[in-house]
């Protein structure tokens, strides 16, 4: 089986990708070229600022539009991507990114809206966000969701700050420690430090669960200083912790909160709701679980769900909905007589109709067509409307504006097309694929734990009879076979880890071919190990000198 990487772009005028070195944009530059047009100045010019505030010029490349297009098309051909082939990076959930999502996010009515437009002019956006909040609450089993965080790590920071704010609010400011398992993603301890808190690490047991006795001892010793625990479940070994209820009880028992790292939610949608499992906070990765593209490293989106007692601490603004029925019920709203129907019963509400001030003359003008109020109650036919609020004890904003809206549109589209049953099917097939692939690797590579796995599992790059072979060699050789490698050397607690996550969108044939490649590589390791040490042989570049990159950093182009 020979890899076809590179074959894609072989053609009369192009050498095989493996031989191409695409120049840096600056090397393509010729003074006087430009790849775009700008309108002519149609107003009288103003006097420019004083010379000491101005610059001569900006050193940017000058290329034609064709140069530019060819450059980026050629660069794109040096990439591996989901749309090219299997991408089993553990913990990254590299599932198919549906094309309809891209079309949805590019609808001009969405893309051409400014975040500071008056809420009544962006009801479509706010409706979508509100519905997504509601759907994520349902999937996760939570009482509140913020869409603001831009990535998983950003969601973690948000979640941990919420936990800390809750503890401080109830007079437990001494709770400054977060329990983190040794199997955790690096972001968990990094988030803890960033939040001004201290990490206490808890080991894993032989079956890949949190070591319950160690946790018990820790809770006993550190109980009054524990802010909470961050737990990825299923964990980074791809295993659902067999003692989850006991872990939750221990942490809650000593006054701590449970943070769920939702990186691995793809295994349990419709299988279990993290909120019902006892998690108080969790971030979702829309760019993993909900099929939004990874983009070569973002943009992602990391909404955070919380249980009832933490809702007031969420970062804002959140989107809220009011219905006429609610207005009627809550405020005795009666048509023309209503003083204010904007729904801002809360004195601290963010509604900009200004009626939080009791004495103010409400100008939201319930029946007035020209009303300013963003509650939308002027829209005679609309049964509901949406507005932005800042929760009462909010930790504050975690970014400007409201979240990665374009990513939210994609995730919304995905959830709406799948529905509840569809999401459960996603998780079931993700878990079926992982267990099947694991079964096919028996006898080829060691598997870290002999248990039913969830959506991923950890193999080891160790081959009996080929002592010089490491996980890295196997990974690089996989490239020659036309597969993206799995995640390497993570989790740290498994020697020579190869963390494999096939996702639900891959077919049995692909999994069989991948297992076949690993079998062939195992055989090569025994007969011709150099083939692995020197791999990849069929990629745009050979193994790169990372040590040199770090010792003599070249971080920008220099003439």
């Amino acid at each position, binding site marked *: 089986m020979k890899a076809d990487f590179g074959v894609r772009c072989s053609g009369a005028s192009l050498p095989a990708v493996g031989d191409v070195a695409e120049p840096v944009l600056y090397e393509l530059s010729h003074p006087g070229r430009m790849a775009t047009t700008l309108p002519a100045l149609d107003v009288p010019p103003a006097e420019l*600022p004083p010379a000491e505030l101005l610059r001569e*010029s900006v050193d940017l490349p000058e290329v034609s539009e064709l140069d530019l297009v060819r450059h980026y098309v050629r660069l794109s051909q*040096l990439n591996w991507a989901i749309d090219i082939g299997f991408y089993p990076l553990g913990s990254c959930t590299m599932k198919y*990114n549906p094309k309809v999502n891209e079309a949805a996010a590019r609808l001009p009515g969405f893309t051409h809206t400014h975040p500071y437009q008056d809420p009544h002019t962006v009801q*479509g956006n706010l409706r979508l966000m509100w519905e997504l909040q509601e759907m994520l609450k349902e999937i996760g089993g939570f009482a509140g969701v913020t869409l603001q965080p831009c990535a998983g790590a950003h969601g973690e*920071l948000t979640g941990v700050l919420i936990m800390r704010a809750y503890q401080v609010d109830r007079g437990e400011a001494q709770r400054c420690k977060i329990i983190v398992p040794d199997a955790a993603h690096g*972001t968990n301890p990094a988030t803890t430090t960033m939040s001004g808190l201290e990490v206490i690490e808890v080991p894993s047991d032989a079956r890949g669960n949190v070591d319950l006795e160690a946790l018990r001892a820790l809770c006993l010793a550190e109980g009054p200083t524990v802010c909470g625990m961050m737990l990825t479940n299923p964990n980074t070994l791809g295993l659902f912790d067999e003692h989850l209820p006991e872990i939750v009880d221990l942490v809650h028992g000593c006054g701590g909160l449970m943070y769920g790292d939702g990186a691995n939610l793809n295994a349990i949608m419709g299988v279990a709701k993290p909120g019902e499992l006892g998690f108080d906070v969790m971030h979702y990765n829309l760019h993993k679980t909900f099929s939004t593209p990874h983009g070569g490293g973002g943009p992602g989106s990391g909404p955070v769900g919380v249980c009832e007692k933490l809702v007031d601490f969420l970062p804002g603004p959140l989107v809220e909905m009011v219905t006429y029925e609610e207005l009627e019920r809550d405020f005795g709203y009666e048509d023309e007589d209503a003083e204010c129907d904007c729904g801002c019963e809360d004195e601290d509400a963010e509604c900009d109709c200004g009626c939080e001030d009791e004495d103010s003359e409400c100008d939201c003008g319930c029946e007035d067509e020209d009303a300013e109020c963003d509650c939308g109650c002027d829209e005679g036919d609309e049964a509901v409307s949406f507005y932005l609020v800042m929760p009462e004890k909010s930790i504050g904003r975690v970014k400007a504006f409201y979240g990665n809206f374009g990513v939210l549109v994609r995730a919304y589209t995905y959830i709406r097309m799948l529905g509840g049953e569809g999401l459960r*099917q996603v998780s079931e097939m993700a878990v079926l694929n992982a267990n099947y692939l694991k079964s096919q690797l028996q006898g080829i590579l060691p598997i870290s734990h002999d248990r039913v796995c969830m959506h991923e599992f950890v193999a080891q790059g160790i081959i009996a009879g080929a002592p010089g072979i490491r996980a890295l060699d196997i990974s690089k050789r996989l490239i020659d076979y036309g597969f993206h490698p799995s995640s390497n050397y993570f989790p740290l607690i498994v020697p020579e880890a190869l963390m494999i996550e096939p996702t639900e969108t891959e077919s049995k044939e692909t999994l069989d071919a991948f297992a076949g490649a690993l079998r062939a590589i195992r055989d090569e390791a025994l007969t011709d190990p150099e083939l692995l040490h020197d791999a990849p042989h069929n990629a745009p570049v050979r193994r790169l000198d990372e040590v040199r990159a770090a010792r003599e*950093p070249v971080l920008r182009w220099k003439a």
Partner: protein
Amino acid sequence: MTYVPHTDADRREMLAAIGVERVEDLFHDVPLACRFPVLNLPEPVSEMEIMAELQAMSEENLDVGHYPSFLGAGAYNHYVPRVVDHVISRSEFYTAYTPYQPEVSQGTLQSIFEYQSMVCALTGMEVANASHYDGATSTAEAVIMALNVARGKRKKVILSPTVHPEYRAVVRTYTQGMGLEIVEKDATECMSLLDKDTACVVAQNPNFFGQIEDLTGLAEQAHAVGALLVVVVDPISLGLLKAPGDYGADIVVGEGQALGNGLNFGGPYLGFFACRERDVRKMAGRLVGQTVDREGKRGYVLTLATREQHIRREKATSNICTNEALCALATAVHLAALGKTGMRTLAELCYHKAHYAAERIAGLTGYLVWSHRPFFKEFVVRCPAPVAEINEVLLEEWGIIGGYDLGRDHEGLENHMLLCVTEVISRREIGALVEALGDAATEVGQ
């Protein structure tokens, strides 16, 4: 539609290979009481139906394509050349992951290296990373970096009140557990507050009100006490204005959206982040470096990873991993499309049009242009009535989306509007705005 390819036969064969009877048998570790809850979600719909629904939903909005908009305040309506979306729509870019396997990620890596190079050129700095989430979070990360450069020994941070209010809010959110003293004073006042405990001064240029500031003196004062100067900057302005690196900035950050990324109701955007080479190991975020492969051929890798969470865990400079790579790619493509000449022309278009609009508005009864020259593409106008009321007339009667209501987050600036004019606004639209404002003054003022 679940995008799942499994046939019934596949399932049977796979279950047999695993050695279980049913898919449900794979979930025995999930506590029984919580297993297989009903997800109460809307019924699934087809692609055709969801697109129709989303089309309708998107049309519930009034968009700046149909209503000329004078809103800026950190999110800018610039024209994005078609070539940008063409490039970022290539699925070799958008369906790739973070380039951890450099041999099969040279496209992403080189494009980031080029982005870093162009951001350095624009800001006049030596090093730029692969991006942060947005302008606000890159500002917060700049503050944290300054604390790290001072090895945690300095606890005071001076934020100019002319920095975007939401950026200042995010700095406070990010640093709430760090026991800092955050002072919000303007540039002149903060000179007197600079001391040996100050980690950094954060200023914005052009500032939140659009005003161009001369920060040269501030840089000198900050450096005199060993503090860093962090400058938040609009990248479009750098086609015209002196690079912050040339007036002493130590860290330059900002919102990159204006280059290559649409308004998108506030995201996804990207925070650009540049610093001095001497501080690079204290910088958070991914960095791409040039190196060679085994055969001596030029190639690119993620580098200086020992700063990052996946290596250093609780000792990392930040927890950031996923950033905004595709948005940074869009920025790079736009920058390269503009090139040296286009960047200058674009900045001048904004500058001249904004000044023209200000001059026209200054001639209106009831309005006062509060900004002094020179400003860049935004300026402040005092209105004869609350901004909300003026904007209502603008929208309802003229189909114009008016400026930002400064009263919403600036005490004392009630009735003050921040107007933004970019190259997408024509002279005719400026004329319409002026007429509409005059109309609004009459209508609301009485």
